[in-house]
């Protein structure tokens, strides 16, 4: 398989994730979509790492995984707090300042 095949796959997954981010109104589903986008980028980085014989891509993928893990921990904590306060995790309910 060539580098382009992996990059195209990475693009398709990224578009799916982005579609989720734009389409979804439920915050938990929005989180899932961001995970998909992060994973898509990881595939691209690993592919470039292999086809250029360079380990930097893999290193970046590791740090992206670490960032994703901490993002989930903090984000889910905030989400639980918000749900306890309002009883809903819908984005439309979340906006408090209505202009």
């Amino acid at each position, binding site marked *: 398989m060539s580098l382009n095949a992996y990059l195209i796959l990475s693009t*398709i997954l990224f578009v799916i994730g*982005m579609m989720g981010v734009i389409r979804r109104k439920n915050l938990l589903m929005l989180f899932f979509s961001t995970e998909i986008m992060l994973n898509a980028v990881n595939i691209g980085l690993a592919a470039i790492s292999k086809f250029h014989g360079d380990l*930097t891509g893999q290193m970046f993928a590791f740090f992206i995984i670490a960032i994703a893990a901490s993002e989930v921990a*903090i984000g889910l904590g905030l989400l639980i707090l918000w749900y306890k306060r309002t009883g809903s995790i819908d984005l439309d309910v979340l906006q408090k300042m209505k202009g």
Partner: protein
Amino acid sequence: MFEIVAFYLFSVLTIVMFSITVFTNNSLYALSSLAAGMIFISAFFFLLDADFLGAVQIVVYTGAVMALYAFGMMFFDSLSIVKEKIKNPRLVFLLTGVVALIIVIIFVSPIIGANIEAQYPVTPTWGNSRDVGIVLFTKYLIPFEVAAVMLLVAMIGGIILAGKKMEVSYSEMTEKEIDDFEIQTRENAAAKKDEK
């Protein structure tokens, strides 16, 4: 031959799984299909000779992140179907496509165009884990330490954020006490709302 078959098989599987995640209205389906997609993605890492990354993908994503989501979903009414108002679905699709295409062109064109020299080349005789270990603990030691501190901060933050108002333990109360407690909290919340 094996690589081509594996690539197409797993790409179809991942795309289907992630599409289910994005388009379903049931949050439990979304969670389980996302977990499956994460495992299928690790197959690409194994195909790309990044064995350690594949193992980390399975352990961290499906083991830690998905478990965290599963625990987090216990706080939400996850069994009900997610209701969402969606305006202008066609516009959303168009915008998504255009934006993604632009992003891809921006990031991919210099990589395909220029010949990049390997800064930290792969040593095939060492094997992937050893290679990764040596580069991670020499060239990327400071980012590694910073990531460790960041994970610690995130862990403490998560505990503090999610652990608020958890001083009451339901497992140590009888059924009647739990009912009384819930009625009381509901009344308190209603009173607070009236004050506002």
